[in-house]
């Protein structure tokens, strides 16, 4: 029972509109609707973000679409609706290797195509790395390749603190002059969403 209480308490804290020091760095930018949520690297991050957006209750479920692999089968994915933003969650998967996984080369090729297409459509690109150091790897790994394919082309970066221990995202932000918001924990992504889409 005590355990349940702790969890409920934590939830309560998280669901207040009060902002703790959980979200730091550049002020959260104002969001535009509708947007397309996707992921780079085929990790669980995209679904996690979708879930957190639902849980935040800041916007309607119909205000955004989730597509795990836009442009893989359908070249019109980015123009399926009048999207204003492309919201990319970066992170690969550690699930089974070989045939059970994805080939990262194909994934990167798709991501490159997606960025070009998004820029052509003049979408506001948000790159978010919200799973921390577990989704960082050696140079050349699926995680790093995914970051390199997306982050430098973003208009806005959201990164979890311990995923930026080596300062890679800070460097990208400075070089490309991209605003960078830092969160303490994955779950604080909910706060970012709430600030992005404040309910009057």
């Amino acid at each position, binding site marked *: 029972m*005590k355990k349940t209480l702790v*969890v409920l308490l934590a939830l309560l804290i998280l669901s207040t509109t009060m902002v703790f020091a959980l979200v730091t760095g550049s002020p959260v930018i104002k969001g535009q609707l509708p947007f397309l949520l996707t992921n780079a690297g085929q990790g*669980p991050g995209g679904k996690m973000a979708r*879930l957190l957006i639902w849980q935040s209750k800041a916007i309607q479920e119909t205000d955004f679409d989730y597509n795990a692999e836009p442009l893989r089968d359908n070249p019109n994915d980015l123009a399926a609706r009048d999207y204003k933003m492309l919201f990319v969650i970066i992170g690969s998967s550690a699930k*089974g290797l070989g*045939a*059970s996984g994805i080939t990262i080369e194909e994934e990167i090729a798709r991501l490159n195509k997606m960025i070009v297409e998004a820029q052509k459509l003049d979408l506001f690109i948000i790159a978010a790395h919200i799973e921390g150091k577990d989704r960082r790897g*050696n140079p050349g790994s699926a995680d790093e390749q995914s970051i390199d394919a997306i982050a430098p082309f973003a208009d806005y970066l959201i990164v979890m603190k311990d995923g930026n221990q080596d300062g890679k995202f800070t460097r990208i932000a400075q070089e490309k002059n991209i605003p960078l918001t830092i969160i303490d*924990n994955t779950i604080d992504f909910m706060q970012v969403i709430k600030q992005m889409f404040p309910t009057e």
Partner: protein
Amino acid sequence: MKNSVYLKILFLVLSGILGILGGIEFVELRNYKETVVVSEDFTEMIMLSEYLPSLKGTWGDTPIYIYDSGVPGGSMLILGGTHPYEPITTVAAYVVMENIKVESGKVYVIPHANMSASTLGMLGNAYPKYFSVETPWGSQKYRIGDRGTNPLDQWPDPYTYIHYPSGQNLAYQDIRNLNRTFPGRANGTLTERISFAIMELIRNEDIDIFFDYHEASLMYPVVSTYVAHDDAMDIGMMAAMMLSATQFPMKIEASPKNLKGLTHREVGDFSDALALLMETPEPFIDRVAGRMTEELMVDGIDEFVQTAAEKGLVYCDYDIKEGFTDPLGNVIIGAPLDYRVGRHLSGTLEAVNWMNMFFPEKALVVSFPGYAEVMENGTGYYLHDPSKADPSRVFKN
């Protein structure tokens, strides 16, 4: 040169003595029983063979402990000891069994999912036979088993194992690996029949949420992780994020669709249960670990694994010198038993909470000590003295 017959007999006798000395220890391990004192909410113990009679009288049969609140609600099944060389999973199941309170719904716990595999050491791995958990009333001894079913119970292995029903080829010894034989066959090998019986339990009792406790080597990417079937993904993700923010680092991975025979894949595919598997870090089973000792099992402190960690080859927090600090402020040095037990306990509670939130109609209200409590008081604090307990609540496994 003709060797003396007496000399030959002498060698034979000496080897025989060696065999007897070793044999005594094998027999002792095979027949050693662990003691557990079930909580007051315990209602009934049945055997797995109730779901598949052909298991009766075999080492594949194993006790199922039932905690029925009598109040309508969700139902949960916990498997410990799917791989008995990850014995903390059984200890965690015991802590649940000794302390659980069920306010609504029904809970099933199988502490030794593969009983046969828990009765021998793993060939070539030189494990100690037992390890002990210190309690306020003395120390409590548990077996360290194998990964697969005892060859004395299932023999021979094929030259390649073909998974039923997918037809996927797997290494031959995986035919005795309970976490590769799901969903099992009623007329298959012993291990396949254990899987089938567990599936029958899940289907017949309409289990809502299923947990399979595991431990992993630190160099295995899926360590400190939930592995969730597609249906349980939302629950797993919320629980993982919550735990990482408030208690201990926890990752989440989706169950790969092409990897067959594993509980998180097959239980989800072949029943309505929400299937989750949890992995804690167990340096003891890392390929690079040094000396095989009981202390390594209990404290999880190993220099070679530390080297691997320093080279960035492990997939979770690990430090045997300064340790790392969890969100509650505990400093974790190595991968101690309490840490691993606590992870399983809170991993279960957190996921159940989220199931209750996502599916209020399945509400399962349970409580037992979690990570914070176990880290504070130690695992032994939650194990009860069988000599002082009501004999009807003392069980041997």
